[in-house]
């Protein structure tokens, strides 16, 4: 018994100074050591409790946010009921609150952005994961793409206003729709750029992890590089690629600043993808300071609740699909 305690202490690097005490009379040193080990057990318990508290705090935080949203929006839920979700009119002056144009705007901008960004993020992922994993240009590309995620969204908003809006406007003139420049389409392009890094970097690391013996098996059967990508790499990484797309979508749904600046901010239902509109996030950002009476404020908070729930649902569905892909 005693010897096992000895070795235990002697092997601990932090206790190296204490090893000397092995030479002091047995009775003294062993009680000392036992006291120490009690202290260690206590420290261990404290550490474990801290971890549990921090972990629980995370759960409590998210639950707290959700509960706050629910409580604060009760006033609006009572006055508008479920009609809030499909009401087509948003008129704070007459206290009519229908969130349909904004839910539509959010889904439209996000999925359009996803459609635009996927080819780019997959191309970057395949290029960096399979074709050119090393070298100065791949490194530059990798860092640049990661930098896209680091640029503050207000800067994207400015760039959108200064550069993208005129381009889109002249494009709209050419195809013969009302040349506004601001709108769903412009927001989708900005969002697409902003979400590329999420799917790209996750995709890159997934593609990088495909076992080389599977790729070699395909090459040895006379497959070309494209055939290896299509028949070995994509099937093997599809759940990871999908998870990356989901991350992108989550980012697109919630993005506020850049979208608010270029979407045109109108509460009407967008007639086409070139029309101005609003997303849930942009309405909250725009109108929060104007909400001069309790129902209005509550209606905006309910919008936040809806956005929160949409994100949760999409995440849950996505996790399900990822699980399905992996079990196959």
């Amino acid at each position: 018994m005693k010897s096992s305690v000895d070795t235990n202490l002697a092997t601990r690097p932090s206790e190296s100074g204490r090893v000397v005490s092995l030479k002091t009379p047995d009775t003294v040193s062993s009680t000392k050591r036992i006291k120490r080990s009690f202290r260690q057990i206590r420290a261990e318990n404290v550490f474990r409790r801290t971890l549990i508290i921090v972990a629980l705090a995370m759960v409590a935080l998210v639950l707290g946010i959700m509960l706050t949203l629910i409580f604060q929006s009760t006033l609006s839920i009572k006055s508008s009921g479920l009609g809030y979700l499909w009401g087509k009119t948003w008129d704070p002056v007459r206290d009519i609150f229908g969130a349909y144009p904004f839910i539509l705007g959010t889904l439209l901008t996000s999925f359009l952005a996803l459609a635009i960004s996927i080819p780019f993020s997959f191309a970057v992922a395949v290029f960096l994961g399979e074709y050119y994993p090393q070298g100065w240009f791949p490194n530059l590309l990798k860092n640049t793409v990661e930098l896209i995620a680091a640029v503050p969204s207000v800067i994207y908003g400015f760039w959108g206003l200064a550069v993208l809006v005129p381009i889109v406007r002249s494009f709209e003139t050419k195809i013969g729709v009302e040349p506004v420049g601001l709108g769903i389409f412009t927001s989708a392009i900005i969002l697409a750029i902003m979400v590329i890094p999420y799917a790209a970097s996750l995709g890159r690391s997934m593609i990088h992890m495909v076992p080389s013996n599977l790729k070699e098996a395909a090459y040895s059967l006379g497959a070309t590089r494209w055939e290896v990508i299509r028949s070995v790499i994509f099937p093997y990484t599809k759940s990871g690629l999908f998870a990356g797309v989901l991350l992108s979508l989550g980012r697109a749904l919630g993005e506020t600043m850049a979208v608010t600046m270029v979407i045109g901010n109108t509460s009407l239902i967008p007639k086409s993808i070139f029309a101005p509109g609003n997303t849930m996030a942009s309405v909250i950002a725009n109108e929060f300071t104007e909400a001069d009476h309790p129902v209005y404020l509550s209606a905006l908070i309910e919008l936040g609740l809806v956005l929160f729930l949409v994100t949760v649902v999409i995440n849950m569905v996505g996790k399900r699909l990822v699980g399905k892909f992996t079990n196959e």
Partner: protein
Amino acid sequence: MESTIVKSVDYNAYFGDNHVVKNVNIDIPRNNVIAVMGPSGCGKTTFLRGINRMHELIPGATAKGKIMLNAEDVMEMHPIFVRLKIGMVFQRPNPFPNLSIYDNVIAGYKLNGIKLPKAEKDRIVEHSLTRVALWKEVKDSLTKKGSFLSGGQQQRLCIARAVAMEPEVLLFDEPTSALDPISTSTVEELFHELKKNYTLIIVTHNMQQAARVSDKTAFFYMGELVEYDETKQMFTNPKDTRTQNYITGRFS
């Protein structure tokens, strides 16, 4: 006199500046089993991977010289066509985990976008699996995933996958080093059957295996082909002292 099917002329292979295979000249006769042996790092696997141009898939890897397949220089051909004529089996069994046993066997056709009628596919699958003595064991579970099989069965499935393409030469890179002794002997028995239709080049770490299965043996050391002879001759009366030292176990 047997006809030569593969012949390397002054073949050199490099990883960057590292000269791994040095000036190898070798004649490989048709329908033979050739064992390639030597200590770790002697270049035997690199040489094998050079024959079907797999070597150059590794970034920084280059090769010089000629490798003749019949009358054509492999180095001048498109690698895709080379690999259709020269199949390969790897150290670890690597069936495609997302494909069924059936689809694994015809994976080569699928990968190359070759469409075949169902009856033809069935015939190829049965024929290839029979060739590797796996048909009886799996004929009722062809739709199951390849990863469902045991290690030895997976390796035979990989051989069937290579055989299905009807190549002329089959390359084996230490095909039994990840297998148990019973699976190893099953695969070794296969070599005797397979050489009736194909030429087999087998890299092995295991001298006993080389002695058991091969007609001719090549001994590589430090990137050079030291000795190449009839297997019996090589193991009973090696000409080079390095071969002798290796065979008698003075280094490994």
